[in-house]
């Protein structure tokens, strides 16, 4: 069929992505509200968690000009979207947008832990947060998934994790759980390249 259009090709988000998508971080105040600042809202059920990490380049250095976007279901496994069966709590958006700190490269967002969601062919996917990563030097945004290391049984049955031929690489998708000052924290470092290169997906 020759009448299909071609997808607009990607170009890097560049070093100044903050101007467009997080202008407060670029150093100026322009919008009444920036988008993606509150993933779960005040009414969402489930466990409140923080997810944090670094994005690390092939040299082993933190990358300090990254923008990350999160897309997740609520604790009942429902996405805030008409093609996901069920309803979400009032104020639950499921979308988050964060940048890495200009000095340390650390990023973090607060949310609720998602529930398992339906997979293909009647399967069930373990709880996960979909992540999209853009930065200077990344020509096409990178997709990965944050899974939770304590979901041992669900992860073992997850059809996407099991698609990864190399069992050693599956661990790159598991966020590590700890508690800090009474807050549940999951650590998820992304390696763009190198021995522990994170699994990235073509979705």
């Amino acid at each position, binding site marked *: 069929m020759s009448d299909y259009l071609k997808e*607009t090709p990607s170009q890097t988000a560049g070093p100044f992505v903050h101007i467009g998508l997080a202008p407060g971080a670029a150093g100026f105040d322009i919008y009444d509200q920036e988008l993606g600042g509150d993933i779960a809202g005040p009414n969402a059920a489930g466990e409140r968690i923080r997810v944090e990490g670094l994005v690390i380049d092939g040299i082993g250095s933190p990358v300090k000009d990254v923008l990350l976007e999160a897309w997740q279901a609520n604790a009942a496994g429902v996405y805030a*979207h008409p093609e996901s069966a069920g309803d979400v709590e009032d104020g639950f958006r499921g979308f988050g947008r964060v940048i890495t700190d200009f000095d340390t490269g650390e990023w973090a967002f607060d949310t609720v832990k998602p529930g398992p969601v339906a997979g293909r062919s009647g399967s069930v996917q373990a709880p996960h947060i979909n992540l999209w990563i853009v930065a200077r030097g990344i020509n096409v945004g990178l997709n990965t998934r944050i899974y939770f290391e304590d979901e041992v049984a669900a992860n073992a049955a997850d059809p996407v994790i099991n698609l990864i031929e190399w069992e050693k690489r599956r661990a790159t998708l598991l966020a590590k759980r700890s508690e800090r000052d009474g807050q549940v924290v999951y650590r998820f470092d992304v390696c763009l390249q190198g021995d522990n290169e994170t699994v990235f997906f073509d979705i």
Partner: protein
Amino acid sequence: MTLSPAEFYQRDREWHPPALTTGYKTSVARSPKYSLISLENTVSEITGPRFGHGDIDPLDKDMLHNYAADGQSAIGERIIIHGRVLDENARPVPDTLVEAWQANAGGRYRHKKDMYLAPIDPNFGGCGRTITDADGYYYFRTVKPGAYPWRNWVNSWRPAHIHLSVFGTAFAQRLITQLYFEGDPLIAKCPIVKTLPDPATVEQLTAKLDMNATIPLDTIAYKFDIVLRGRRSTLFENRLEGN
């Protein structure tokens, strides 16, 4: 039997830049070496964030004025960027968020990390956002950005460009790209443009002068359509969650 959309068409990776593009030096240490793992779509990929008119302000799309003092306007060549967001089936994508950011007319970004010697324009922020209408149509009013030097080769210059971010209806459609301007001799010299694999892809990222949409004695228009991934339609029940 219902006619329901199903998977998105596979992204044509040969139409996008590869991860490793040595001429664009920063990509060398930031490009994954292993192959991407290809996933068939699930509900996680066919859904995505949605934004409404409660999320943004109508003035956000007017970059001539959205950061200007009262009665003031950004300095530079006044332009309109307009077009439609479509999918690969040539269907409009309505109600989707389009965000834009750019340097000012002198090639300087309003960003604490941009140290280029060209001056900041006090009346220009450099970002805008809008939501497509029922026909997928969008527009921004702004100034034409200037070219600027950057550290790649010693004498590398970016052609005038506007960064665009688009959501579509699904996380699988998420896209960031850059719009260039017809006739700019710097396009062919740019290491970032050269990450594109095919001359037709450069052409697709080049906004065309649009005299019909130009407002006489006021503002020059450029037309730029954006295409997001399309979806298969099927006469069978959507199989993503069943069968």
